[in-house]
């Protein structure tokens, strides 16, 4: 069994072209390793990459945990998780943080009662799935509009949530952060940090109102139907990247971290259950 080309899907969070640029070195290495033409694709949203994996038009991607769960639920035979990113501190995970404007008088989740609450993309783990399960546990209610919160919206993505909160379109929202570093910097990495760096928000104007339990980092997945040797080669390539070419690793992993570590489907069963819970 042979493949004639290898296609890597890249998720959002950055300019499409920036994404392609930062993964260009991975593309070159893959092409060299596999000896077939390798292409990068950066669709507009999570769903684009997931549809590609399900339809067999994308061979490898680095998904979020919820995205993987969706893929698995749609077709358990579509992809398998192989690697996960490990943080500098050795753990693998990040957080969903709830935040609001300081001048809105909101300091805790309870203050948002009856007001407008915003999620990001429905397929985002930290922007929707985890908070939509953990927040009701804390409030003792549901996430239906009008039950606890006055209205619950999807803003479309982390970036839009931040701007919507800063503008006052929504009273509070959730986004992701690595939980390292300081609030006033927008943490070491995450959507808040990017917005701060872009000069879009001033962290002094925002307050954190909630933080989730650690969320498992999403897996690097390979299409199950790929030939075995391709899977092995690609896993090895990704795993050895920090050692081989740290610069490339840095841009692929979007920041400093320790490296990739093998992972299996079992690590995501909790997330899958959570996702099932949210389906009707």
């Amino acid at each position, binding site marked *: 069994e042979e493949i004639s080309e290898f296609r890597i899907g890249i998720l959002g969070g950055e300019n499409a072209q920036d994404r392609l640029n930062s993964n260009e070195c991975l593309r070159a290495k893959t092409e060299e390793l596999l000896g077939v033409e390798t292409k990068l694709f950066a669709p507009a949203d999570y769903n684009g990459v997931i549809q590609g994996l399900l339809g*067999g038009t994308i061979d490898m991607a680095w998904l979020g945990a919820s995205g993987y769960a*969706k893929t698995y639920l749609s077709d358990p035979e579509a992809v398998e998780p192989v690697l996960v990113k490990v943080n500098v501190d050795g753990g693998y995970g990040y957080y969903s943080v709830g935040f609001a404007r300081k001048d809105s008088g909101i300091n805790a989740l309870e203050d948002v009662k009856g007001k407008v609450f915003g999620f990001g*993309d429905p397929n985002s783990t930290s922007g929707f799935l985890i908070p939509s399960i953990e927040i009701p546990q804390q409030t003792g209610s549901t996430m239906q509009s009008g039950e606890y919160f006055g209205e619950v919206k999807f803003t479309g993505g982390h970036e*839009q949530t931040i701007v919507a909160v800063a503008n*006052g*379109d929504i009273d509070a929202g959730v986004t992701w952060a690595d939980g390292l570093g300081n609030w006033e910097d927008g943490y070491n990495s995450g959507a808040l940090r990017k917005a701060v760096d872009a000069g879009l928000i001033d962290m002094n104007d925002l307050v954190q109102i909630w933080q989730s339990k650690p969320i498992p980092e999403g897996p690097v997945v390979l299409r199950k139907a790929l030939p075995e040797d391709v899977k092995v080669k690609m896993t090895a390539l990704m795993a050895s990247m920090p050692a081989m070419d740290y610069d490339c690793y840095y841009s692929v992993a979007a920041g400093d971290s320790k490296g990739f570590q093998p992972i299996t489907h079992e690590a995501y069963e909790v997330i899958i259950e959570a996702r*099932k819970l949210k389906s009707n």
Partner: protein
Amino acid sequence: MADLTAQAPGSVAEIQAQYADLTRRKRIYGGVLLALFIALMMAGFRTADDRNAGSFADGYQRIFDYPAEVLSEAGEKVAELPAHVVHFFPALVETLNIAGAATLLGAILGTLLSLLSTRGMAPWPALIPVFRRVMDICRAIPEIVIALVLIFLLGGGPVPAMIAIAIHTAGALGKLFSEVNENASLKPVEGLNSTGASWAQRMWLGVIPQVGPNYVSYALLRFEINIRASAILGFVGAGGIGYELKNSMSWGQGKYDEAAAIFILLFVTIVVVDQISGALRDRLTHGNRKGA
């Protein structure tokens, strides 16, 4: 052809030769054009296929995978569809309102722009090219661009979509309206002018009665188009039924029944509005022809 008549060809042989020449030229011209078109299509297809993740050859059998997935889930939960339809109805109303308000505002603005840029009607003839360019630009910017920028400024919701569609509509209708205006008679305008009527009076009393039915007909056509546009803008956060559709579609398995319900709602609306406005337009332009 010109040389043919110029020389006033006498003999049949001469005409034959000239016609043969013409045919050969036509054949070459036509052949080159056809070859060019085929080559462009083929090369274009190859390029697109190459730059696509999946190729056409692999993918065409899978075209129905996705609809099948949606339909099978919707089929399982068919009992819930009516409830979903009711639930999402307000979102549909919002989408229709976006389209309706945008069409109205766009038509009003387009009327103004078209009057300002038609020779003989414009109050400032020197500015005609300016208004023409304004219309061109309004028309050229895809709605999604304006909507996204406005969402950044105003936050999500229907208003950015409405403004975005209205701007585009103003440009598109403005162009169509000015074509209608060109065909309107200027005599009544001059007549009103001679009585000392102001510009607004000249336009309202002299032009609008002539062009009204055509305007309405074009505006209705635009309304159909705008419903789609407003649904699409929902996809990027502008509210309405498109927003709901995107959320349930991108959630995927587990909410496909909602997606199906929304889709049915949207599809039925589009078809119904198409039919009604088609019939109305037919009446308008027909009645107009009789009247004129």
